[in-house]
């Protein structure tokens, strides 16, 4: 089991904990007693806030999708703070309302610059151009690395796909934890509502056309408690990954 619980909800956490203990004690016939103390748990990880552990700052070097077609180069905006107690509130309507309100630009083809700051509400947020070391982009690692809130976040994303030719009937395939929305060249392509796990090809778009040359992908991942990450690739008509693309952040 794993109750996705956030740190900034102490009241709720307390209720859950109390509930757990009282429920356990009465329902499961465990005699009341002290909650056992945890054994010592050694810290073996590098706990410093370091971006380069999971990411490489994006360079001008040519970047292609990985062997399975996943897009690993992204412009990632520092998280917009959101008070979200549970991911199950992330319905389609919630996504639409929130993402149009907490947006840095309603021009979905805009390409921000690495290091640029933008305003979302009264928050001043900075863009990072990053290459993920894994097939997916772990936003939890990202927010930890830049020492920003890890839970209750909305993260905006942009990347630029260079296609050698026009490609019809391709599909954008994404998985995200938790909810997300995706746009291709300004057009809404995908909505992934709910308390989701990041699963490759969890949701696919309708048939789309990649233009010859630059295509702008915009994304937004929103997460309350728990892990936040996403993976994204393009599939051809047969469901196979498209790999003859190049990815840039400009």
């Amino acid at each position, binding site marked *: 089991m794993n109750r996705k619980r956030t740190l900034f909800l102490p009241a709720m956490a307390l209720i859950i904990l109390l509930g757990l203990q009282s*429920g356990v004690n009465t329902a499961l016939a465990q005699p009341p007693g002290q909650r056992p103390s945890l054994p010592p748990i050694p810290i073996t990880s590098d706990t410093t806030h370091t971006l380069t552990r999971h990411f490489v700052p994006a360079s001008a070097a040519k970047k292609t999708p990985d062997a399975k077609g996943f897009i690993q180069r992204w412009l990632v905006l520092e998280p917009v703070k959101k008070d979200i107690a549970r991911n199950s509130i992330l319905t*389609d309507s919630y996504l639409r309302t929130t993402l149009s309100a907490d947006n840095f630009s309603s021009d979905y083809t805009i390409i921000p610059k690495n290091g640029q700051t933008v305003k979302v509400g009264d928050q001043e947020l900075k863009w990072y151009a990053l290459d993920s070391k894994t097939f997916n982009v772990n936003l939890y690692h990202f927010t930890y690395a830049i020492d920003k809130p890890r839970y209750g976040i909305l993260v905006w994303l942009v990347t630029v796909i260079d296609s050698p030719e026009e490609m019809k009937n391709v*599909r954008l395939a994404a998985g995200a934890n938790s909810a997300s929305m995706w746009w291709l060249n300004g057009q809404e392509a995908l909505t992934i509502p709910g308390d989701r796990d990041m699963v490759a090809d969890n949701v696919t778009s309708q048939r789309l056309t990649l233009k010859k040359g630059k295509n702008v992908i915009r994304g937004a991942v929103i997460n309350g408690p728990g892990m936040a990450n996403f993976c994204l690739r393009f599939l051809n008509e047969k469901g196979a990954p498209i790999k003859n693309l190049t990815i840039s952040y400009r």
Partner: protein
Amino acid sequence: MKQRIQIISTIVLLLMLLSATAIAQVGKPFIHDPSTLMESDGKYFTFGTGGGGLISTDGWTWYGGGVRPGGGAAPDVVKIGDRYLIAYGATGGGLGGGHNGRILTMWNKTLDPNSPDFKYSEAVVVASSDGVEDNDAIDPGLLLDPTDGRLWLSYGTYFGFIRLVELDPKTGKPIEGNKAINIAIDCEATDLIYRDGWYYLLGTHGTCCDGANSTYNIVVGRSRKVTGPYLDNMGRDMLKGGGKMVLDATDRLIGPGHFGRTVLENGVEKMSCHYEADLDQSGRSVLGIRPLLWKDGWPVAGDLFKEGTYEIESVRRGYALELAVDFVRMPGGMRFNRNSDEPIKPVASQQLADVINTWPAGNIPARIGDYMGRPHQKWTITDAPNDTTGYLGGPYYKIVIAGTERALAATADGEVVTVPKFTGASEQLWRIDQLIDGTYRIMPKLVPNSGKKLALVSIGDSSPTLAEFDFNSDNSKWNFKTH
């Protein structure tokens, strides 16, 4: 858990209601001993005992009109090259009082009597029984062996042995010097099929021609060699009466017999038979077409699709086809911390009325989501009203969200949506075929502005679309669940 008995009768009643729609074929599908279904000139044909036969333009509505000279009984047909070889018994199996029988074959370039090419060749005798020997030469079944192109004929009745002879696929005549081999007893209306390294001998056991009291049932044995021995699931030789059940009486369709196999494409197979009595059609003998399934290497009759309310499960991931609407929470949340002495009482499940007002009025996309047993995941599937068309073995279906007229529909860009109201348009009509592994294929009758034959496919775990059917991918498969 004891007080449920009083409602059992209601359950039974409902189940009967649900099953009352399992009909055989429509039109005037009256026939006995139908030959294996054949497609010719874009139509389906089957011939029966006594001459004549049925024709269908879509495979669902059948009328008389087939022409087969020679009379007698229980023909079979196989297509060899661009010609059709028809075999039939000149006698009727005891009809003439004895067991003196003859089997003849003849060719035709088409089965359509309206075609200028329609002309049967002179029939030639390929097997006979003298009335005394342990065999009655009627009920032929033909197999063109796909592994080596040889042509085999099985024939005979419960009167002695089922026999196997080899014919020349070029002439339809017996191979010179070929001797008949005994391969079974106790059956009649046999047919041979080949699949995946095995030869299967399908035969009909039981009593025919007694209306609703007929005990006809179709059994099978299999062998690595076409000449046998054909053993059943118990290892029993069909020469000693063995046979594993393929199809027997189901509800109001009684006495299936005279198996024929039709392979439509990889993973989609049908079987034809007659039922001695269809209680919904005056208890007359009718043509039956069912899905043919393969289970552990054995053929088993599939189920006719039953109208009802279902959850539609994607085999890819196991999620449910649903409306893309906001998830509406049920009251309450975690009920972890309950006092164990609290009285236990049922909680109402979510009802359509609780959520329908939150749904948009226009088209709503379809998607695939976690099974939640919720109203936006329940689909009522019924034979489409005011539509008489169909496909091999079934009518087109209307698929709507239960309790509404919101209908699943194909779009011109090859996707699926739900439209607020079922209009009967072709893109709202759905073909449902049970596949050989027991799962289902769901296809729109028409993809607007497209000549393509596309099926409902899971392109992502959560995303349905229309794409080419591929039996080798779980993306193309669906299940209907009543949980």
